[in-house]
């Protein structure tokens, strides 16, 4: 900055006198509520105020969308404004020496008037509204308004339940016409299907008549950016109150993009993904397909290790499973092939591949994983495995050959592979097809998170934890490694893949010292150049507001999560109806 001092122009010789030279060259210096702010030119007042901890309220403004300045909530006093007038802080650029006041009598009166106006026809049905607890109307009403309605007569009645598509439902009465959703669909999703129809109080958000329903893979984002409860996610709707949920920073494992998310959880169940800000990968967005991948974390999980195939399977304990697995692998010593699924985290693969190389003594690792699917123009990729890059890196670092899945199936059909250990039960072909192939194996042991035809075909299934149940890291398609945080302990009798690998190695005579995924990474990542430089501890996003205190709140207003994050209430044996 100091290098640019000589840029200062010489004093103008004649009239008119130009503006004073900037206090900080290249930057704009202004005063907000008595605090001096140095900001880049082009910053708007809201962002400049945020930098010094001044909150300017807003509804329609969104950092990643164009400015509409239609909610009029962010009006502030500025020394550069015409006398007696307020300026919208979202739309007005900053200039040198401007004095902005956000907490004057006039601004407060304006905020109160806007709130009264926005709430005029709002149904105030917070008791059945899922946004309650993370609603900006609620928060700003308490902070800036706190007055009873003066409306006489009835409120304007609109459609309370309009299904925009299978994922999004619209309540036109709750809408404050901020047009965030309209702008998002046009600018980010590139599917301009929403619009504002009608006039005055009867204005509504609706789908353009040309479209029957909202047709986009990014429609779920308009639920996130809706500042009120007008747009709601039918998948999450009515399932939990926002203030009962806690949040853990995680990623979506639906495809190789690896969008940063928050896993909102209660007890040992994840309730939804919320996209987490990540400039490099997903900005503030995620796709509808990924949004529903949280279901695999809750449903059809392998909760207990299982012995036996098909209908003969019986649940066994973790210790018994380990004992049996060691026994069976010992019997097939030297003949066991190893397949690894790129759905597992880096730590799982590090421990798993070390186990394969040093204990099973394999030279080749077969890459399993989910079959490829459709990608799209924005975030969704065709490769449905979140950690393929990680698997490739680790295999290369460990000096193992990573063979495609077809090689394995060919070898199985030719009878060259008679015993198989699988880290992860996802396979890139139809589950039934692979299950039929696996029937011929003399030994098939697999660590699995979810039940499938493949786990049915295994002689021994070892219950494994999913990625939100342990600390870990993933490397997405562009080579960016991201840390995920643990939300809750593994469900049932499951333990992470890396723990199975470490325990099996110990049972088979190799002492691996790791007792946590952190230790696995510290001990084994040195061999992998891409991971050796990754700062495992420093790159971990915070999962607590302050160290040692609770979990992150899932509600947007940041109030602490309720007591229920520790588990569901004991119903004393009361049987719930099926399907609940």
């Amino acid at each position, binding site marked *: 900055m100091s290098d640019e001092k000589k840029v200062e122009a010489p004093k103008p010789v004649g009239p008119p006198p130009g503006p004073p030279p900037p206090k900080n060259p290249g930057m704009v210096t202004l005063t907000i509520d008595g605090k001096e702010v140095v900001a880049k030119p082009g910053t708007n007042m809201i962002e400049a105020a945020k930098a010094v901890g001044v909150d300017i309220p807003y509804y329609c403004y969104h950092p990643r969308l164009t400015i509409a300045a239609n909610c009029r909530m962010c009006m502030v006093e500025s020394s550069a404004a015409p006398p007696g007038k307020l300026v919208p802080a979202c739309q007005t650029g900053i200039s040198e020496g401007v004095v902005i006041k956000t907490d004057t009598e006039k601004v407060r009166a304006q905020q109160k008037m806007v709130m009264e106006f926005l709430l005029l026809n709002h149904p105030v*049905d*917070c*008791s*059945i509204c899922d946004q*309650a607890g993370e609603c900006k109307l609620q928060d700003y009403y308490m902070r800036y308004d706190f007055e009873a309605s003066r409306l*006489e*007569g*009835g*409120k*304007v*009645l*609109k*459609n*309370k*339940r309009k*299904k925009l598509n299978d994922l999004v439902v619209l309540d*036109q009465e709750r809408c404050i016409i901020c047009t965030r959703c309209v702008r998002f669909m046009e600018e980010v999703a590139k599917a301009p299907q929403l619009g504002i129809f009608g006039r005055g*109080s*009867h204005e509504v958000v609706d789908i353009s008549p040309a479209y029957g329903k909202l047709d986009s893979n990014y429609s779920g984002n308009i639920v996130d950016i809706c500042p009120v409860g007008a747009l709601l996610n039918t998948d999450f*709707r*009515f*399932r939990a*109150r926002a*203030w*009962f949920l806690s949040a853990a920073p995680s990623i979506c494992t639906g495809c190789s993009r690896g969008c940063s998310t928050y896993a909102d959880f209660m007890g040992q169940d994840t309730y939804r993904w919320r996209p987490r800000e990540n400039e490099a990968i997903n900005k503030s967005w995620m796709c509808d397909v990924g949004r529903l991948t949280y279901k695999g974390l809750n449903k059809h999980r392998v909760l207990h290790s299982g012995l036996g195939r098909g209908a003969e399977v019986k649940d066994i304990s973790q210790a018994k499973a380990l004992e049996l697995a060691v026994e069976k692998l010992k019997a097939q010593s030297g003949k066991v092939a190893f397949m690894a699924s790129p759905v597992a985290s880096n730590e799982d693969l590090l421990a798993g591949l070390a186990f394969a190389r040093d204990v099973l003594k394999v030279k080749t690792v077969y890459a399993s994983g989910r079959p490829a699917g459709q990608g799209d123009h924005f975030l969704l990729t065709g490769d449905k495995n979140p950690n393929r890059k990680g698997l490739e890196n680790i295999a290369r670092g460990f000096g193992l050959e990573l063979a495609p899945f077809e090689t394995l199936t060919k070898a199985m059909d030719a009878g060259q592979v008679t015993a198989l250990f699988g880290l992860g039960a996802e396979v890139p072909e139809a589950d039934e097809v692979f299950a039929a192939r696996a029937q011929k194996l003399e030994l098939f042991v697999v660590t699995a998170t979810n039940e499938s035809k493949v786990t049915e075909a295994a002689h021994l299934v070892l219950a494994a934890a999913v990625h939100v149940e342990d600390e870990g890291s993933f490397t997405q398609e562009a080579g960016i490694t991201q840390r995920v945080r643990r939300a809750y302990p593994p469900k049932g009798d499951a333990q992470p893949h890396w723990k199975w690998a470490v325990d099996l190695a110990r049972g088979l005579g190799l002492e691996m010292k790791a007792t946590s995924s952190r230790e696995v990474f510290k001990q084994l990542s040195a061999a992998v150049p891409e991971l050796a430089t990754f700062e495992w501890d420093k790159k971990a996003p915070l999962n607590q507001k302050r160290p040692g205190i609770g979990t992150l709140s899932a509600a947007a207003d940041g109030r602490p999560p*309720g*007591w229920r994050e520790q588990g569901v*209430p004991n*119903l*004393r*044996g*009361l049987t*719930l*109806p099926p399907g*609940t």
Partner: protein
Amino acid sequence: MSSLMHHEPEKKRELVEADVRERTYVPEILKGIALTTRHFLRNLFGERDTNPDVVERKGITSITTVNYPEEKVDYPPGYRGLHRLVPREDGKPRCVACYMCATICPAQCIYIEAGEYGGEDDQAESRVIEKYPKQFVIDELRCVVCGLCVDACPKDAIRMDTYTHTPSGYDRQGFVYDIPRLLQGPAVSHPSDPWYKRGSSAPPDHVHKEAHTRIAAGGGLAKRPPLVEVMKFPKP
């Protein structure tokens, strides 16, 4: 200090010497016996009023003991008794599963699961409220009878006006109350209830009119609201 200086001097108390009458105790003993006898006769022959409001009791006798459980007193007005879920006119609970009671409950004894009425469901009052409780369970053994759930309810859907306490039982399971056991008592409705404002969650056909003209025309009301009256729960 100055305030202490101006303090008034203590008044001297004079000792009164007891006279002969007091020193013999005889009249005092007779007085005491008379009082006891009066109460004895009053309680033996007098009528007894068991009004729960002690100040309002009219009977002659001063006995307040009740031979429970053969005799039972009525609980006073405002008594926080066993919970009930208040039914609507159509027999379903007024509750919309907003979780306010479960949130405020200091004993964490309320468990709720919310469900959604289908859009095509046009039965009675359900047509305008999408949300309802699939499960509403109160563990009465955990309940501390504080009444906060009643205060927190925005829909007047849970009340403690049954004027009975939780009956005793032999197993803990019997104290877990679900919807069939909680949903009892007279139906309640308020003029502000949403089904008086509209026919369904779809926009009404008069939507193009301004709000004041709609009210004047009277077309906006699906049904005329009943007069507000405080429903009293019949005493057992």
